[in-house]
């Protein structure tokens, strides 16, 4: 029994239910893992299956069809992934461990080369394709990175009316994407946008350069982040407007967007 008077079973039930309905904090997740290793499975089955069954029951009476455009995007992503050399779990016939390891490296190298080729193509193809593929890469990053940070842009000291969006960043992979809607299209010969990444381990005066970029549409635009240095502990992303090519140190006179990591 815990100090609060809760039995282990009560607490285990509470953690299981919170995990399903509201999610767990990092501390609770650790506690959950510890319990799951020693608590016996309930003979009545799992709460997770109960909640999923309720979701299914309610869906069948209140279904909203998947929008056609979204369906097409998901299908295209799936087909693209299916045709890639890196197999899905279960796609490859079972083979011995040694054989699997020996064939994995060439596939990985091929996949890396393909990724590089595709990425190079992104840089040289029309903007429509850049948006489409950046969207897929962003989705992929979010889906495959447990540590990804997602932040909404908020107005900076010199805001641009109607500009909004978000930024995602994986500290482990050092990869991220900015998404914008309503950010003013820039005249590239006169000015460019530049991202700055503020790291707790770095002087506030010298944030990490996150790359120079252009906005070619006031619709949704997704821009990959190109951090010039490793970012250990990000606490703020800031977008400034600079001369073409960007600057080494920004005066921060024109700073339309900020995204701050909330202190935990």
């Amino acid at each position: 029994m815990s100090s609060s008077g809760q039995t282990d079973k009560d607490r285990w039930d509470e953690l299981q239910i919170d995990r399903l309905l509201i999610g767990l904090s990092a501390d609770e997740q650790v506690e959950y893992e510890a319990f799951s290793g020693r608590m016996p499975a309930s003979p009545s089955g799992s709460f997770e299956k109960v909640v999923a069954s309720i979701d299914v029951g309610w869906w069948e009476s209140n279904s909203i069809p998947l929008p056609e455009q979204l369906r097409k995007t998901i299908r295209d992503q799936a087909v693209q992934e299916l045709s890639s050399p890196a197999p899905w779990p279960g796609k490859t016939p079972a083979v011995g461990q040694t054989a699997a390891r020996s064939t994995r490296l060439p596939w990985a190298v091929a996949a890396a080369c393909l990724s590089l080729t595709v990425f190079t193509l992104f840089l040289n193809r029309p903007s429509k394709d850049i948006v489409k593929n950046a969207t897929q890469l962003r989705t992929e990053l979010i889906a495959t990175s447990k540590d990804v940070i997602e932040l909404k842009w908020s107005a900076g000291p010199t805001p641009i009316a109607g500009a909004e969006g978000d930024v995602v960043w994986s500290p482990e992979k050092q990869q991220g994407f900015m998404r914008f809607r309503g950010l003013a299209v820039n005249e590239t010969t006169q000015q460019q946008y530049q991202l700055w990444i503020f790291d707790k381990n770095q002087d506030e005066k010298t944030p990490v350069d996150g790359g120079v970029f252009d906005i070619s549409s006031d619709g949704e635009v997704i821009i990959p982040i190109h951090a010039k240095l490793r970012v250990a502990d990000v606490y703020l992303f800031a977008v400034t407007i600079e001369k073409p090519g960007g600057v080494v140190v920004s005066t921060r006179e024109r700073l339309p967007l900020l995204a701050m990591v909330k202190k935990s």
Partner: protein
Amino acid sequence: MLVPLLPRVAQGEVAAIDECLDRYGGLVWSLARRLSPTTPDAEDAVQEIFVDLWRNAARYREDLGEEATFVATVARRRLIDRQRKLSRTPKPQSIDETTFAYASPEVTTIETSEDGQRAAACLDKLRENEREVLELSIYHGLPHSRISERTGTPLGTVKTLIRRGLTQLRSCMQLSIRVIAEGGVSL
């Protein structure tokens, strides 16, 4: 009972992807719309959920449960994970403003899922206040504190009602399975 599609997806069959989107697109989208703060968030979430599904397709085991329940499980895990991440940043609007845009669930007329049918029948056996908090929590995705405010029920009582309701549902659903297995009337 419908023939599972995920084993075919795991084998890389493109036709199974199409069938899967036809069969479960509405389930995933309905869940994402209800449990996401905005439509763009829901669109992102749905894409992530299907990536999860394709990658975990080989893990589905027909003997352990229905495929629709598996899909709902994968979807809910991803959606709650996203909610948790979003809650670390300032919300653009209250979750109430969007979640209540969707009508509460009606009495179900199940055609395909035995799990869903059992769950709906067992829900009907709960007390009114237990059913209400479960609906606000599971269907509308409200946190316990919001349910407390909305129903005027103390926070501790909300947690108790949710736990008691789910425990009863779990027992009821298990009992229904046993009755079916022994050749009786299902519910």
